[in-house]
């Protein structure tokens, strides 16, 4: 019974990913972008253009092109990227850790600030902390994240000098830290280079803070809404009548009941950060996944785009499965 459910789940994931790939492939072929021109440049003559067109297999029917890609994929080969000439898997292994490092810290900041703020707003409903939280939430959610980034750079980097500038590490350290995990904060420590580690932190905190504030706004609004719904329930009144402290009522009862909903939005928010931090990556010159995907799209580098889309699909599936698994931990009804 359990193995059948797992098999059904896996089949569903495989169909989802295949559909995603097929759709991306077709969109890529419809887009008015010519990967050949990206390689040969605008001034190449006809024979060069035709030669590269053939080399890329673009003279073949779409079905054969997709079949070739799919056959490679099954063998673990995502093809080579036009931009780098490297296997797409190598490229992704290079850019993903940069985004994971940024998005994870941002998520941490967003969660640690957003959830308590949302709870506070709900418990102080229609009082000044609630108004403040709502204004902060509105500002954080409606202000463009690149504007936050630029202002952050101006204040904390240019004026105060607290933050590092562009990139993941000071320019003078670029290329000097051996890559082990791809997470520079870890790699600098593994290399025992504390000066470089400090440079990494100085560069990481501001973009993570900017992204984190954006997440905080979303999480605080959602937490507030979930908590308000719970705090108006009869079991809360009963708990208060029984003489429980405010802390026990809020955290021990109301918050326990919104954990499953929060898990869902946390998973989605984290997935969104992993794929969608492109604006912050651009402002901060952060060589991450979003920048790689955007650059590949603009070039018409479909191998890189398809590989990236596949990774996004897998990430979302993985996050959803993780959230599903955690539902069972937090919600006894899901264990049944």
């Amino acid at each position, binding site marked *: 019974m359990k193995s059948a459910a797992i098999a059904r789940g896996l089949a569903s994931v495989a169909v989802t990913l295949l559909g995603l790939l097929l759709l991306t492939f077709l969109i890529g072929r419809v887009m*008015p972008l010519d990967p050949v021109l990206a390689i040969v440049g605008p*001034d190449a003559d006809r024979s060069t253009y035709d030669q590269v067109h053939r080399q890329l297999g673009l003279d073949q029917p779409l079905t054969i092109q997709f079949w070739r890609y799919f056959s490679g994929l099954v063998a673990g080969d995502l093809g080579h990227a036009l931009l780098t000439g490297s296997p797409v898997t190598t490229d992704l292994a290079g850019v993903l850790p940069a985004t994971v490092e940024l998005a994870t810290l941002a998520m941490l900041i967003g969660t640690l600030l957003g959830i308590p703020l949302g709870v506070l707003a709900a418990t102080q409903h229609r009082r000044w902390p609630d108004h403040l939280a709502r204004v902060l939430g509105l500002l954080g959610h409606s202000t463009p994240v690149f504007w936050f980034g630029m202002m952050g750079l101006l204040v904390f980097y240019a004026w105060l000098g607290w933050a590092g500038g*562009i990139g993941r590490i000071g320019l003078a350290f670029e290329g000097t830290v051996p890559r082990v995990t791809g997470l520079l904060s870890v790699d600098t420590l593994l290399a025992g280079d504390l000066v470089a580690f400090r*440079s990494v932190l100085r560069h990481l*905190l501001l973009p993570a803070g900017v992204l984190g504030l954006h997440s905080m706004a979303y999480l605080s609004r959602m937490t507030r809404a979930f908590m308000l719904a719970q705090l108006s329930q009869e079991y809360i009144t009963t708990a208060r009548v029984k003489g429980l402290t405010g802390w026990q009522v809020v955290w021990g009862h109301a918050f326990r009941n919104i954990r499953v909903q929060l898990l869902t939005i946390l998973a989605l928010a984290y997935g969104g950060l992993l794929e969608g931090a492109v604006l912050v990556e651009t402002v901060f010159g952060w060589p991450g996944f979003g920048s790689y995907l955007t650059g590949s799209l603009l070039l018409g580098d479909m191998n890189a785009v398809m590989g990236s889309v596949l990774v996004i699909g897998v990430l979302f599936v993985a996050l959803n499965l993780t959230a599903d698994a955690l539902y069972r931990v937090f919600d006894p009804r899901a264990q049944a």
Partner: protein
Amino acid sequence: MPIGRRQWLCAAAAAAGGGLAQAASESPADQLLLGMSMNNLLSLDPAAATGLDAATVACNLYDSLLEVDAEDTTRLRPGLAQDWEIAAGGRRISLRLREGLRFASGRRIDAGDAAWSLQRVLALNLAPATVWKSYGFTKANAVMAIRTEDARTLTIDLLQATDPTLVLYTLATSMSAYVLDREAVLANERQGDLGNAWLTTHAAGSGAFELEVWRPKELLTMRRAARHWRAPARLRRVVFRHMTESQTLRLMLMRGDLDMAGGLSAPDVKALSRRPDLVVDSVRRGNLYYVAVNARHPRFADEPVRRAVLRHLIDFQGIVGSVLPFYGELHQRPVPPGLPASLSSPGYRLDVPMARRLLAEAGLADGFDTTIRVIAEAPFTGIATSLQSTLAQGGIRASILPGTGNQVYGAMRERSFEIVVGRGGGGAEAHPHSSLRALVYNPDNRDAARLTNFQGWRTGYADPTLNGLIERALLEPDAARQLDLYRQAQHRVDELVGGVQPIAQVLDTQVLRRAVKGYVGHPAGATRLREVYKEGV
């Protein structure tokens, strides 16, 4: 290396302190830190690379047989070749290499490496081969025409009549003429690709710097070559960082975290030019900003319509003054200033009444609808917006279609456009033929000819007299007569109103810290950093 508890504590302390401490400049004295867009840096293989980004990097990793003087691009200087001569009535070029040359690998450089490098360009037949094919070289004849006389002498037979000086300029300025370490490249050959895949992200040259790290669209670092045949470079390390946001480049320059930046917006350059610690350096390049119309399109097939749009409905002076400060200088003819035979601009200016008269004569008194294709980045969008406004004054309703370079030039290569705002021209060789050929020459206007590398063909306009002048000038052995023919060709362009109207010569503007010395920007993009150093840092 395992980390002990003490180190973890130190790290935590460093982190805490680092968040609050006022940062000092991160630019060390022996490193040059550059910020620029590396969007177009797709390959470092001299037989595949195109564009200014690649040229900026590759000229420091590789050496060419000849170089051109950055101050006077018509003056050739020795590179790996110590001397050269033109023989056999202009049909043969011989170059004699210096003694004691070595690649970064330590292997001795000989004429065989130089010949093989050129033959390889033709064998791979990628974009850089185009210029060599225009001289009559092919994959089939390359081995016969490009050969060695001895270990130090390279001979190039010109199989079709051309001006040998033009070929020398190509040898001095084209990335395709860099000399590669044949053994290192062939050791990394994959499926008969002559090392193309490997050289995309590696280098096998003899330049003043060696490639250290390259992560596309992120970072490229070079270290001083341990044994360069010239004096060693003065900098220990050069770091190129991919950055596209003008505002962040500006902030980093102001903080002293960058030594040099390119691609800043005009307002940012203007603001930085007022700072005493920074210097603005502009270099005239060989190409031009232009407006092109498709003469095969029914709207622009009539000469009066083209004349109205290209000569009287462009606010040349306004565009240069407001959109192109630091990035363009007014020039309205195909041969840019600084090249032999360049003529001053004929003085075209916005003249709406004249344009309306011409359109009325063409039966278009009520104007018409059209589209402007433009790359969605500065300064192209600014030019297109100005053009849209002045076309409207003439009654022409133009929609702007922004896109990537790929989309805009792709449509142009397919002749499926109406108006394009673009950038092009010869660029590298300091020879009028290079510019005229790229912009206005079109020997076969049939769709089937697909001469997609010629702007003249893309705009669907050909004039046999103009083609004849350009062809005759190329083969004219007398220098004075040759210059006269090139001037005649430009006057012919003025008379005709073809498909391309130059607006401005391209300027390449960099902002540098004043402490950076010895930097001389090169008009052909080959800015060598071997003499650059930092003072008082």
